């Protein structure tokens, strides 16, 4: 497309102009302007062809430049999108894991890598490796892949390399492309350990509060008449002892009355102790000290029962607490551990400092090799009067829990039948102890 012969004046000169349209595949992409100072010779057919050819070459050159620029912009935009997506993925507090339909892992974000203890960068582990470390998660992935059974909020436990028992909540859904075809799976994993622990703690506190408020009043009313009954019964037994000569059955009646009133008295006293928070006198003490004291008290008995204490204490962790009450906690827990090991064995006792966002915690960990706790009993372990032993009172752990709660701490249990039990007592660490202690 040519437009020639138009004359223009510019800076005092006269020009003759030629416009050549530049088009590629019928699309106008620019124009070529030729200014001729001299008078233009007439454009014959040959010259016109040369001009059109030159314009075509020029048009292709410009089109190539434009295409290259467009490609550059698109690539940069894609890179930006990828960077943003990756940044979003990496910033998520929840874990994200994606797999293709062949069960090959394609993405593991940082949170998932941390929770599942898997590498966050390629080469990613194989599905078999994931299955070895996380059988329950691998199972739901397998079911989603083979049977298209997608699940939501399935909890599984995982003991990490620090020995911490985590509860992981997983959701598996299909990953589809723009045509709706399944190209893989998206697995979302959340660490809900704290939520579960808080829920358990709340349930426990609710049960204790409900039982406590009702029974504390009753217990208080029972205790006074019970003391009178007990005292008078003892005096009566003493008075009639000469009449009961040759009548062992009378002595048996008194015996039963005595034992049962004592039992009632102990129950009501303990219940009153359990149902009201106790004031704690707080002094700074090393968290290992109550343990050392109690282990020394228990060692003769432990030796008789072929039980060995293995200890690993840090001497720089301090708490603010009542030394005698914390000794009672240690005694109750260690007695419980010893009773769980009738055939002897080893009890590992350690102290450690755990740093968390909100606070530093002194932890006492007591791990036995005993018979373990049945899953259905885990929730009730700290309930008053809950016991699985015929001669147990069911108060040892309840009292320990009460004392630890009065100190602002918690007790958690990790156990499975026949694989021992681990009780972790967490107490707020004294401030300066945590400041000069590395975790």
């Amino acid at each position, binding site marked *: 497309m040519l437009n020639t012969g138009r004359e223009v004046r510019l800076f005092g000169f006269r020009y003759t102009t030629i416009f050549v349209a530049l088009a590629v595949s019928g699309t106008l992409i620019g124009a070529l302007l030729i200014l001729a100072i001299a008078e233009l010779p007439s454009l014959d057919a040959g010259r016109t062809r040369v001009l059109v050819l030159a314009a075509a070459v020029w048009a292709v050159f410009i089109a190539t430049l434009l295409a290259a620029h467009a490609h550059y912009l698109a690539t940069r935009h894609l890179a930006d999108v990828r960077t943003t997506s990756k940044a979003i993925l990496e910033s998520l507090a929840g874990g994200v894991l994606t797999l293709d339909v062949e069960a090959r892992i394609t993405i593991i974000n940082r949170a998932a890598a941390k929770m599942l203890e898997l590498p966050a960068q390629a080469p990613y582990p194989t599905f078999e490796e994931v299955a070895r470390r996380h059988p329950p998660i691998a199972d739901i992935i397998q079911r989603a892949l083979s049977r298209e059974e997608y699940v939501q909020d399935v909890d599984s436990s995982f003991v990490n390399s620090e020995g911490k028992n985590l509860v992981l909540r997983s959701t598996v859904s299909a990953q589809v492309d723009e045509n709706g075809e399944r190209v893989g799976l998206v697995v979302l994993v959340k660490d809900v350990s704290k939520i579960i622990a808080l829920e358990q703690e709340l349930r426990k506190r609710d049960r204790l509060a409900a039982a406590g408020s009702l029974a504390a009043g009753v217990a208080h009313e029972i205790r006074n008449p019970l003391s009178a009954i007990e005292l008078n019964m*003892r005096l009566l*037994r*003493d008075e009639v002892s000469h009449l009961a000569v040759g009548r062992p059955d009378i002595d048996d009646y*008194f*015996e039963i009355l*005595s*034992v049962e009133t*004592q*039992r009632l008295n102990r129950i009501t006293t303990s219940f009153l102790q359990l149902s009201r928070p106790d004031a704690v006198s707080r002094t700074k003490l090393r968290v290992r000290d109550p343990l050392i004291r109690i282990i*020394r*008290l*228990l060692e*003769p008995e432990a030796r008789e029962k072929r039980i060995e204490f293995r200890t690993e204490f840090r001497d720089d962790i301090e708490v603010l607490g009542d030394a*005698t009450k914390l*000794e*009672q906690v240690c*005694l*109750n827990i260690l*007695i419980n551990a010893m*009773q769980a090991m009738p055939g002897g064995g080893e009890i590992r006792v350690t102290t450690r400092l755990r740093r968390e966002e909100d606070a530093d915690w002194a932890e006492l960990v007591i791990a036995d090799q005993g018979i373990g706790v049945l899953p259905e009993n885990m929730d009730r372990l700290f309930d008053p009067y809950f016991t699985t032993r015929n001669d147990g*009172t069911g*108060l*040892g752990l309840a*009292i320990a829990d009460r004392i630890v709660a009065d100190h602002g701490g918690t007790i958690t249990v990790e156990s499975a039948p026949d694989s021992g039990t681990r009780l972790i007592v967490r107490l707020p660490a004294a401030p300066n102890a945590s400041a000069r202690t590395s975790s």
Partner: protein
Amino acid sequence: MDEQKTYCDEANRLAKLRRFAQLAPQDPEVHLALARELMGGALGEEAASELHTVISLSPNHLEARKLLEQVMGGIRSQPR
């Protein structure tokens, strides 16, 4: 005279506690009270026996365990 009275009171208290311990053999507090009285009277071995009874009745009894450690230390340090 006063010393005589105190002695009688203590002896009487020990006898009463022994009697109570017989009447309420399942009550750890009675055995503990008797053990304390026996310790005061330097009757270490009998005190240890009562403390063992307390611990068998109430394994979580911290005071009894501490007293037993004290009594056993005393018994071991006695010349034979």
